[in-house]
């Protein structure tokens, strides 16, 4: 609390709260949560563009395995000798694409951006609990990004054992070129990244628990905050396990221990390691890895809950059910990791148990989907760009979620494991859905971040091309998986039965290229609007939550005067009897007598009595 009072006095001193800031303290080593959110977002966008370009490179190889692209050699040098991407570089591309997207874009870029931006603004706090740690969190993240990208400049190339880096492939440098220095950099980058994520998450949780404004009890928090809160808890509990696993792997690689290694022979060279188990890594990795996919999707679900409610001009249907299903997903996500390991040779009894827990997690997910649909029902839907992306998210979440029911079933997983079916599944449910959640958030809160509006028409173009192309890319891939085509194959030319999929690959690659070009519309719109967009009004979407009560011009401490008090939940849209179709959270019930409902008072008898008296007195007037 002392920080808050400090800020308060500070503002009194300076009137409008404008510090005498240098460029360095304002834009670089900023401790202001809004600036840190922007830093996370822009770094995330840059990483996303890099990851997207990598994906286009390997899609080129998959579509035209026999063609040469001399231009590639110009850019990639020995990795595309003679204009063809080399098999080991192909694996590096796949690996780094996955790593960047999962960790740097959809964990840090998504959760980092919106936790930083929205938590203080939506719970009514001047800043994070610890602004300095918040700054550290960003800088660790940036260092992690740089270390990861630096592996492209290493002679043996970046890590290339897949983003899950299963040992012994990742542990023994002679197993593949990418397991040399590139893998060491990957591991270092990941340790730094986890530090960033932990610092951030601890900050988010303590801010939400301790710094909510007056009246903001847990059941009045917007669903974005609930989602970001539970995401942060997931991160705190699961990321340290990854660090433990990574440290053991570093020991195996560099100090000759045998945590993951045993009975290994390369050709005739017998390695001295004895007693370890490669399966141990998989347990440690997926203990993080599975919660990780919920770390990716839950913020997106929270964001879309908020956006769908605002733009349907309707309260989110089943607010409590939405929160409980998020809590259910959080708890269950810790006991389902084994479904990634059905075919590792793990005890089949465990396979059965993990199948049960995995399919149970579909229930809260189904509840969320139905609640979204019910929110749209009889709404008055405004198709803002954010709303389009939120609707797209719901569609992807359904499509990708349903294929999860196949993969969560241990007996079906036997034939689908590590095929393109898996690729299609997670690219829809956590790739496209989470990216759409992130884009929805960017379009929705852009006015809050930059004080300007993005161009809606370019955004429509961006949405429609991306939405259609994402389906064109990922839907056909299911069928490759059902034909038994394994993922991470450099070329389909070596197997007779895969030849029939070559034309599909060409189609998918073209769709991917068009989707990638559509992102230019977003990038242009984003960067152009930062400087030249239309000036935003204070509450452009007519939303209820607290962030829209702050002035458009940013100031350190968010609110010029006192922090607002909260009286009601955030979803009073189109309430019968109200003058407007939205009622801010800061509006007391005494100002909205005509629209108050009995359950608004949560059993407060005094308030109910006053309301009854008012209604009795005003009834004739209303008639």
């Amino acid at each position, binding site marked *: 609390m002392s920080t808050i009072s400090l800020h308060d006095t500070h503002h009194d001193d300076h009137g409008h709260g404008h510090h005498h800031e240098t460029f360095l303290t304002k834009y670089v080593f900023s401790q202001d949560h809004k600036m840190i959110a922007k830093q996370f977002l822009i770094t995330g966008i840059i990483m996303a563009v890099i990851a997207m370009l990598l994906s286009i490179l390997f899609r080129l190889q998959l579509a035209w395995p026999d063609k040469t692209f001399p231009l590639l050699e110009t850019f990639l040098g020995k990795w595309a000798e003679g204009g063809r991407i080399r098999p080991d570089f192909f694996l590096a591309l796949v690996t780094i694409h996955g790593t960047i997207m999962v960790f740097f874009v959809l964990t840090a870029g998504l959760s980092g951006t919106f936790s930083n931006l929205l938590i203080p603004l939506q719970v009514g706090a001047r800043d994070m609990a610890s602004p300095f740690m918040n700054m550290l969190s960003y800088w660790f993240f940036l260092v992690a990004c740089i270390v990861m990208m630096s592996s492209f400049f290493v002679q043996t190339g970046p890590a290339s054992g897949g983003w899950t880096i299963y040992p012994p492939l990742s542990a023994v440098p002679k197993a593949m070129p990418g397991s040399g220095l590139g893998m060491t950099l990957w591991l270092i980058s990941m340790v730094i990244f986890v530090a960033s994520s932990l610092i951030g998450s601890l900050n988010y949780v303590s801010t939400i628990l301790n710094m909510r404004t007056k009246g903001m009890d847990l059941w009045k928090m917007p669903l974005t905050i609930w989602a970001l809160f539970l995401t942060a808890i997931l991160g705190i509990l699961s990321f340290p396990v990854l660090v433990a696993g990574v440290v053991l792997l570093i020991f195996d690689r560099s100090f000759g221990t045998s945590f993951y290694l045993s009975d290994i022979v390369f050709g005739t060279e017998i390695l001295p390691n004895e007693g370890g188990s490669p399966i141990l890594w998989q347990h440690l990795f997926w203990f993080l890895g599975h919660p990780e996919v919920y770390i990716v999707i839950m913020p997106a679900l929270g964001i879309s809950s908020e956006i769908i409610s605002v733009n349907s001009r309707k309260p989110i249907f089943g607010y409590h059910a939405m929160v409980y299903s998020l809590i259910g997903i959080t708890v269950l996500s810790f006991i389902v990791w084994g479904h990634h390991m059905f075919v590792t040779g793990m005890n089949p009894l465990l396979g059965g148990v993990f199948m049960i827990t995995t399919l149970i997690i579909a229930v809260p997910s189904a509840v969320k989907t139905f609640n979204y649909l019910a929110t749209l029902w009889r709404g008055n839907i405004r198709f803002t760009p954010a709303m389009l992306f939120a609707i797209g998210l719901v569609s992807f979440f359904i499509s990708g979620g349903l294929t999860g029911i196949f993969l969560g079933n241990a007996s079906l997983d036997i*034939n689908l494991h590590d095929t393109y079916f898996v690729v299609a599944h997670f690219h829809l449910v956590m790739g496209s859905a989470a990216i759409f959640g992130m884009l929805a958030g960017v379009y929705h809160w852009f006015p809050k971040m930059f004080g300007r509006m993005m*161009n809606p028409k370019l955004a429509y173009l961006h949405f429609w091309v991306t939405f259609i192309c994402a389906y064109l890319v990922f839907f056909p891939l299911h069928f490759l998986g059902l034909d038994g085509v394994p993922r991470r194959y450099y070329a389909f030319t070596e197997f007779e039965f895969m030849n029939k999929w070559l034309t599909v690959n060409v189609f998918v690659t073209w769709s991917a290229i068009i989707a990638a070009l559509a992102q230019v519309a977003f990038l242009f719109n984003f960067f152009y609007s930062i400087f030249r967009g239309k000036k935003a009004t204070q509450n452009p979407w007519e939303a209820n939550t607290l962030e829209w009560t702050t002035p458009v011009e940013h100031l350190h401490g968010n609110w010029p005067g006192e922090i607002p008090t909260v009286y009601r939940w955030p979803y009073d849209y189109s309430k019968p009897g109200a003058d407007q179709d939205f009622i801010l959270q800061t509006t007391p019930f005494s100002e909205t007598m005509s629209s108050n409902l009995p359950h608004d008072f949560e059993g407060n008898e005094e308030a109910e009595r006053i309301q009854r008296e008012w209604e009795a007195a005003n009834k004739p007037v209303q008639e």
Partner: protein
Amino acid sequence: MSLRKLIVNKTMAALAVLFTVFSSANAFAQEAAAAATAKPVDMGPIHKSALFYVLLFLLLCLFIAIVGKALKVYELTRETQGKPEGINWNTVNAVLFALFLIVGLYGVYWEYTVHGNMILPEAASEHGKRIDEMFNLTLIITTIVFIVTHIVLFVFVYIYRSSDKRKAYYYPHNNTIEKIWTIVPALVLTLLVLKGFLTWRSIFYKAEDANNRPINIEVVSSQFLWDIRYPGPDAIVGKRNYKLTTAINGLGIDFNDKNSLDDLIADEIVLPVNKPVRFTLASKDVIHSFYMPHFRVQLNTVPGMVSYFEFTPTVTTEEMRTKTNDPKFNYILLCAKICGTNHFNMQKNVRVVSEAEYKEWLAAQTPYLTNDLRKAFNLPIPVEAAPAATEEAPAADTTATAAAVKLDVKNQLALKK
């Protein structure tokens, strides 16, 4: 007026950008062309074609920008004339969603019927049939949910598009409905879990049938090979010890184990139809995955750990060829776990044949044990094998192994006592 100026400015700017890009890229191309004299590939035309595509894209951007400006001009003129805004984007997007639904549903139908026909043929194994049943049940349920929820989603989106005449319906919750759509998915999933669990158990918990013992076959993976070991007449594959690996004993077979002496090398997997087989899976270096999609068989091969997969093939290769109408059809073993540079080409041919053909094939396979290995393991070298009488060598080996089997039986008896 200022607007027109703006357009002109924009176009001019765009043209300037185009021009600079063109000229600089052209210079680049010339430079590259000069460098290309040393190299066999002439980069000139390649740069030109790349440039062509870049220009094409810029042209598209310009076109979009012009359309955008035209729309803006249109809307502004409507505004100045005091008429309602020109284009109702809410309606446009709602209609696009409705169109997306219709085209999308057709697309899904097309995918299911066209690409759906290109997938694996029906399972060629006993347990595979149960997996296919499970798959079909899941597919039916999920397809229904997929179609219905998408229709609901996009129809709601279309019907409830924004309108000034309506107000949204304040409807925060309904506990009964929420209970229903919690319980119904839970029940459906219980059904799927139960069936899945029973299928899973039936695959991995096999009761031993003394009259129908499975054939033991060992498969050892390494970068990027599958080594296959069939048992000899004793029907048991001998032990391996990775520490015994040498240039002549690549798998590290322990020939001190009597069961190893008669083990046979095979360069393909041949299975008799309708007989259970039990694969013993191991790996030398990294994790690979033993994947035979037509039999619905997959299990990782993990160094330091031995795993087993037992199943019964039910369709011979010949039968499958007629079934799929593909005279070139072959069963295949591939690697499904990323394992290094040549992961994409780690295959082994698999044949399912009649019992008689299998016996004939097996008899033609040679044992792992060679004279060099005999020397290495201090085993007696059969006398006949030493001279150049190569044709008699296999026969000699079988007698030797037969003796070994007898020894082994004695050992086992001794153990039992």
